[in-house]
């Protein structure tokens, strides 16, 4: 485990070293952004609408019972932007995009394509890792903003059309805008940016570590998804504590 973390740190260092050449590689970044968007936008939309809806469905009747129906908007709004959208979108991206990154880099490693790059004096980190890291760091926070908005809409639909809640759109969104501030959305964006870096690093590092043919590629993909999700959930706790602490400072 410590070996893997060490390898990831070295990869991160090499990534920073290649960053000054990012503008030169912008075409590859666009291609990666397109691939990430293509792979995840529809799924993000479906996931978010149902996550927003289920929070409203679970909490709405209880709040109505206690005469707090107007708080549903705020509850859905805060849970989506501070916790659920960043974590769920990161898990989705780890599964759909991170796994593809590991598989692609892993097969390039197994079939000596990375060695071929090295013999041509082409830095594999600049060629393969840097565009992916930049793209995922842009794509995931963007996806989170999108997921937050769609999740709010999902919550609104359930709150309005479910008979056991049945509040108006105005009541829902007025409470949401009262409870949720820009800093809450920023909170989620900071988390998603950190998660994006983690997914990119874990996926690329696992790809580079791949050995042993198609079975090895499969093993690396599984390991990369599992490691990414575990790290996201552990980091989520500590990041939340840190962000809460920073929020509490005057």
């Amino acid at each position, binding site marked *: 485990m410590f070996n893997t973390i060490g390898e990831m740190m070295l990869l991160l260092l090499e990534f920073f070293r290649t960053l000054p050449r990012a503008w030169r590689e912008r075409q590859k970044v666009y291609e990666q952004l397109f691939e990430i968007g293509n792979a995840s936008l529809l799924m993000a939309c479906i996931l978010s609408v149902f996550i927003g809806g289920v929070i409203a469905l679970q909490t709405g009747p209880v709040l109505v019972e206690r005469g707090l129906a107007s708080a549903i908007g705020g509850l859905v709004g805060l849970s989506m932007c501070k916790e659920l959208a960043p974590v769920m979108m990161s898990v989705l991206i780890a599964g759909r995009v991170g796994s593809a990154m590991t598989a*692609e880099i892993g097969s390039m490693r197994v*079939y*000596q*394509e990375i*060695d*071929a790059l090295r*013999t*041509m004096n082409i830095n594999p980190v600049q*060629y393969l890792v840097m565009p992916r890291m930049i793209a995922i760091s842009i794509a995931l926070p963007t996806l989170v903003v999108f997921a937050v908005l769609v999740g709010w809409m999902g919550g609104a639909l359930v709150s309005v059309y479910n008979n056991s809640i049945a509040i108006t759109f105005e009541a829902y969104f007025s409470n949401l805008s009262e409870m949720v501030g820009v800093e809450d959305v920023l909170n989620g964006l900071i988390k998603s940016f950190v998660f994006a870096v983690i997914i990119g690093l874990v996926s690329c590092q696992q790809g580079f570590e791949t050995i042993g043919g198609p079975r090895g590629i499969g093993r690396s993909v599984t390991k990369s998804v599992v490691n990414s999700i575990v790290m996201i959930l552990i980091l989520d706790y500590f990041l939340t504590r840190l962000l809460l602490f920073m929020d509490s400072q005057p």
Partner: protein
Amino acid sequence: MSPPVPTRSNVELRILELHKTYAGVPVLKGIDLSITPGEIFVLMGPSGSGKSVLLRQLIGLEMPDAGEVLVNGKSVHDETLRAECRLAMVFQSGALLNSLTVGQNVGLYLAEHRLLPPDEIEQVVVQKLRLVGLQGQEGRPVSELSGGMRKRVAIARALVMEPHLILYDEPTSELDPLSAFTIAEEIVELNRRTGATSVVVTHDRDLGLGIANRLGILFDGELLQVGTPDQIRQSSHPLIKKFLGVDFRLTTSNRHLS
């Protein structure tokens, strides 16, 4: 970096006491060898004798456990070396980037190092593909190519670098005799035209003895003998005699007869 221009090779390779071990198993056991500028040196030996491992050490893809590879007196791992001389390798599988087309693969070195504008890269790609008999294939995805074509694209990709030293890993493996003959001719022709020092790893006796200026016979991680094709043919070493003398047709037909 400036665009690569063809220059006569003056690359000398020296391998000093090279050792490499994988998982406790010694694969290279103290290889000592000198390869002179412009020659075709063939490393021959049975499968598993350490030929490809040695080749990976020569191009600097792996670090040896002990010993050194010197290119014109500089370690192959010296970062300044590649500014002075261009080293290329043709992998056994071709190692073409599957996400790119034939043309993109061939022009990759020039494009990534921004050595020429895109339209000039296209011209170079066309020219190099013509040299290996693949004119008009620029736009084809590499996944559609046969084994022989992949190898020729890999050779074209190496040629784009105008290399001073070119390493071939089993260039004729998995090829039919005609394709193997064509590749062998190309290796000799390229060496004649560019003067690039060439190291060819193979277990194909006909190829090795046919194209080499000198050969080295590797057995179980040890270099048994180095010499010209004639010297190797006349070798009295029992393992070399056995390796060169095995005739599968006779053995099989005798077995059938008995």
